[in-house]
């Protein structure tokens, strides 16, 4: 696959915009020219502005709340607190434990305490300033491992462990000739999307509310919003607004309930937009993790056992912690065959910022640890790190530590061979190189002095779709009808386009399945059944599957009509806008069969999964596994601790490249996010307080940090998945981090057990800072 062309002009033939083609995004031009309307651009005449008062303290008791002065401010329409929440006072994706507005206490810095609506954002801000909250500050619990001690203060009544996942396979007391162990740490990464949390709530005549919002799962939002508003679900109608990036950060609610409460209270449309700084407090982050691993291997490198203990800092509320813990545990030994596994993964509550979904969740943290261990093992055995991995690589038919048999392609060894077999970029040459290609870049810190090259590898595994027996489905309605005498398909789902290209993909599928050119993807909203979440790399699989199934039903209706009109033709199909017989070619224009529109609505499910046994972690918990491998080539300025990633090669199996260019985009973007975690991206939290809530000090990679990539995209069809596809979005985020760190280790000889790797770690000039 090469992924060459992009169709931007009018599409003339299904061969350029069907499944397997690099069909162009319908929103590409608008986004590039700045004309795309994001949720923060929503506007309605007469709307007023909502704003949120947040706790400055990570842990405090609220002794009193005085809103009088704020209410008296001219232009302020409403000030609402916990008492004004008419329905359920808490919400949450997995456990409803997060207050809509804090009542008697706050558990993290930034927790919403009150909301206001005013006729101008500035007035709203002033009103916030007039709310008086008296707090009694308490010592925050900020160390995730300390949270496990029996004497630790409890963040919630039920104790500090959100979930403990145990994996037990084989002999717990297995012994091995070579044993390596290590403790690894992963810092708190942010999704760093560019479009801040925003939306518009419009009160409706029936007493309900219409909400326009950037989110990842409309129906999960609706269930939670309706419960908190005390309304039946059909009185809360949600439409997807333009999403400026998601990466997991829009799975939890942010301003949804708040804007609806204010709209229903004031009877006016209410818009809320977080500022960049507020956004850092307005969504969950990636779980920081401490991971202790012990690997035992035979002299030939074959793994005999892995024992691991993982602690994930979930922060103040549960969010997706239970699923993150399950992923870290079930995928915790990586894509390797290991006969004996004993692994414990605990997600805990602290008074740190809440952590939840972010691209690759759970798998990212574990991969940094197990891949670091594989390198350590290779070094201990004197083996090449790729060779050691290949010797232990799982494959189709391998058994996961959960007992699940991997029943489709698992080309782990092949992916490793692909990246390691590529020619290396030319070696660093002399001292008169273009400084943009050197560590430090244009900052002119080296002309070659101190620069050492290193090469490292990483490979990861990720589950695709929702797991552990979850009833995971997507709904699609497809209607084939005539527009101006031409056949056209409408595709309607509630699945969120978050930038990944789902709208494009739905069009490709409809064109391919129905043999028509014109496809309109109807805006996603809750007037149709759930599309499920745009997460877990699942939408191509799930909503792609649902759209295909609905198209198949529509097509069958058309063929049925055709069989009626042309008796004797059994082998009919639709193609190029025509009804085609295998024997006689085109029989009729589709238009002639569409006097009545053909329509179908399908709720589509992937094959079932089972829960994990709570004592042993055994169970067929996952739907599909996906794999990507990276080779990183870096130049490290060993004296200054600065790193330039010279090249990243990635090999990934995608089952079927539904849209080759979109696949490449996902691999580039995911890899860059992994590079960010390796080298710079960290929310620094001290004493429960965020120290860098801005893009001045939360650094994400620039074009001078992200090197050119070399890609190998394998298409080994998964017989269980629509079109054979395998989820693409997350795997490349997982393996790029350990590959880059391995390359830095190779250049420096340092152990480097924490990401992001800071210049201090390389130069030995920093206290090992604790979160």
């Amino acid at each position: 696959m090469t992924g060459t062309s992009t169709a931007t002009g009018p599409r003339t033939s299904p061969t350029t915009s069907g499944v397997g083609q690099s069909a162009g995004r319908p929103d590409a031009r608008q986004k590039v020219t700045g004309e795309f309307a994001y949720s923060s651009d929503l506007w309605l005449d007469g709307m007023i502005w909502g704003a949120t008062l947040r706790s400055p303290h990570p842990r405090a008791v609220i002794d009193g709340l005085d809103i009088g002065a704020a209410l008296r401010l001219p232009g302020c329409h409403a000030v609402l607190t916990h008492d004004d929440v008419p329905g359920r006072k808490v919400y949450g994706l997995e456990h409803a434990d997060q207050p809509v507005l804090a009542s008697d206490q706050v558990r993290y810095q930034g927790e919403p305490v009150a909301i206001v609506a005013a006729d101008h954002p500035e007035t709203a801000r002033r009103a916030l300033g007039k709310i008086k909250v008296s707090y009694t500050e308490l010592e925050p619990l900020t160390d995730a491992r300390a949270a496990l001690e029996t004497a630790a203060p409890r963040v919630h009544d039920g104790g500090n462990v959100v979930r403990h996942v145990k994996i037990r396979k084989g002999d717990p007391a297995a012994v091995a000739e070579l044993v390596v162990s290590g403790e690894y740490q992963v810092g708190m990464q942010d999704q760093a999307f560019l479009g801040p949390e925003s939306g518009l709530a419009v009160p409706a005549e029936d007493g309900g509310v219409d909400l326009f919002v950037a989110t990842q799962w409309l129906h999960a939002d609706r269930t939670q919003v309706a419960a908190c508003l005390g309304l039946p679900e059909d009185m809360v109608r949600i439409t997807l607004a333009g999403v400026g990036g998601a990466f997991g950060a829009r799975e939890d609610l942010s301003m949804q309930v708040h804007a609806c409460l204010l709209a229903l209270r004031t009877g006016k449309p209410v818009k809320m937009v977080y500022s960049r700084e507020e956004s850092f407090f307005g969504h969950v982050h990636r779980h920081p993790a401490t991971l202790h691993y012990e690997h035992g291997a035979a002299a030939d490198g074959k793994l005999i056992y892995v024992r691991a203990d993982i602690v994930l800092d979930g922060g103040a509320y549960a969010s997706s912690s239970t699923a993150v813990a399950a992923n870290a545990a079930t995928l915790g030994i990586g894509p390797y065959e290991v006969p004996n596994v004993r692994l414990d993964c605990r997600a805990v509550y602290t008074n740190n910022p809440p952590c939840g979904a972010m691209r690759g969740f759970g798998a990212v943290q574990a991969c940094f640890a197990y891949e670091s261990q594989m390198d350590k093992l290779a070094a201990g055995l004197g083996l090449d790190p790729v060779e050691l991995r290949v010797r232990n690589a799982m494959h189709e038919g391998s058994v996961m530590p959960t007992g699940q048999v991997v029943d489709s392609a698992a080309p782990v060894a092949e992916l490793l061979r692909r990246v390691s077999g590529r020619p290396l970029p030319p070696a660093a040459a002399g001292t008169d190189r273009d400084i943009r290609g050197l560590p430090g870049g244009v900052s002119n810190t080296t002309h070659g002095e101190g620069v050492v090259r290193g090469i490292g590898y990483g490979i990861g595994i990720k589950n695709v779709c929702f797991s552990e027996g979850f009833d995971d489905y997507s709904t699609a309605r497809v209607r084939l009808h005539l527009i101006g005498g031409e056949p056209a398909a409408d595709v309607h789902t509630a699945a969120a386009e978050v930038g990944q290209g789902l709208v494009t993909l739905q069009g490709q599928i409809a064109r391919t399945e129905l043999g028509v050119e014109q496809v309109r993807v109807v805006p996603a909203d809750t007037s149709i059944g759930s599309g499920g979440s745009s997460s877990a790399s699942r939408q191509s699989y799930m909503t792609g599957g649902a759209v295909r199934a609905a198209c198949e039903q529509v097509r069958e209706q058309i063929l049925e009509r055709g069989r009626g009109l042309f008796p004797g033709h059994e082998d009919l199909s639709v193609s190029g806008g025509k009804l085609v017989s295998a024997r006689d070619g085109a029989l009729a224009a589709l238009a002639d069969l569409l006097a009545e529109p053909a329509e179908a609505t399908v709720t589509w499910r992937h094959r079932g999964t089972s829960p994990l046994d709570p004592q042993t972690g055994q169970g067929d918990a996952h739907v599909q596994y996906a794999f990507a491998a990276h080779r990183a080539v870096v130049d490290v300025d060993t004296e200054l601790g600065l790193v330039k990633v010279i090249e990243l090669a990635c090999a990934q199996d995608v089952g079927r490249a539904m849209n080759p260019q979109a696949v490449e985009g996902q691999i580039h973007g995911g890899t860059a996010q992994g590079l960010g975690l390796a080298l710079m991206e960290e929310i620094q939290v001290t004493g429960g307080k965020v120290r860098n809530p801005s893009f001045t000090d939360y650094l994400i990679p620039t074009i001078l940090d992200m090197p050119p990539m070399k890609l190998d995209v394998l298409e080994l069809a998964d017989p269980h998945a629509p079109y054979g596809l395998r989820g693409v979005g997350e795997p490349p985020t997982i393996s790029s981090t350990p590959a880059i760190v391995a390359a830095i280790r190779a250049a420096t000889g340092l152990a480097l057990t924490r990401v992001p790797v800071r210049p201090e770690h390389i130069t030995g000039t920093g206290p090992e800072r604790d979160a």
Partner: protein
Amino acid sequence: MDFLRPATLQQALEAKAERPAAVPIAGGTDVMVEINFDTRRPDALLDLNQVAELAEIGSDGGLLRVGACVSYARIIGELGRELPGLALASRTVGSPQIRNRGTVGGNLGAASPAGDAHPVLLACDALVEAASVRGTRLIPAAGFYQGPKRSVLAPDELITAFRIGPAMGPQQFAKIGTRNAMVIAVCSFALSLWPQGRPAGTGGTIGTGIGSAGPVPLRATDAEEFLAAELASAGLWESGVALPSTVTHTFGELVAGAARPIDDVRGTAAYRRHALSVLARRTLGWTWDSYRKGARQCA
């Protein structure tokens, strides 16, 4: 908020005298960020972009006179030969958009210890030209900064220009950041060599400036004096031989010793000191190499 748009320097100075609390805005790359983040709510903005005098580049005696509103992009494009150190520093500022708008006047006005122009201005003994309706004064860069984001500028004064000697020897600037572009300095260092002395006659043969490693931009005076003495006493300017590693090493240690860094989100104090010693050694190596090459070419 009032938006004042003087068309001439005289009008600008009168406006500032009348409303000393008015906040000057040049490129706006600091001011607009503060307003957007709501950390600053001025009653009035004083827009300097219509004042042609402030965007001029000229000379006065042996010194270049660069208007406060000259952008980094213009410094790179028009003054790269005369002011190589400042051009190098300008290249490290932000992104192309920021370099098109941002100005040295604004960097001085903001007086952040992390501003990238400051180390070069220090290393080149630049003079800050400040004007008010009361008159014009010249403030040596070393006496301009008072504390983080504080300077000696009076409330009714505007920065009109800076005056700086054109390079008479090699200059360098290097800056540490935790990514390879668009980054605020973790620390930075500027070095200038003046083999024949300075254009204005004052100041030694070595100039230094340290950024982002103290409450204000700093000079490493001990390092300057040490190096000047070593070069002179061993006849190194004349012989042009490679510098003994003891000299570069000690120079680096003295520069690190002159810093007064703290631990913060961008880096530890220990790292900053260490990095400064490395940058000082390396920039000395680069400037000395080009001095030697230049000397050989002349011979």
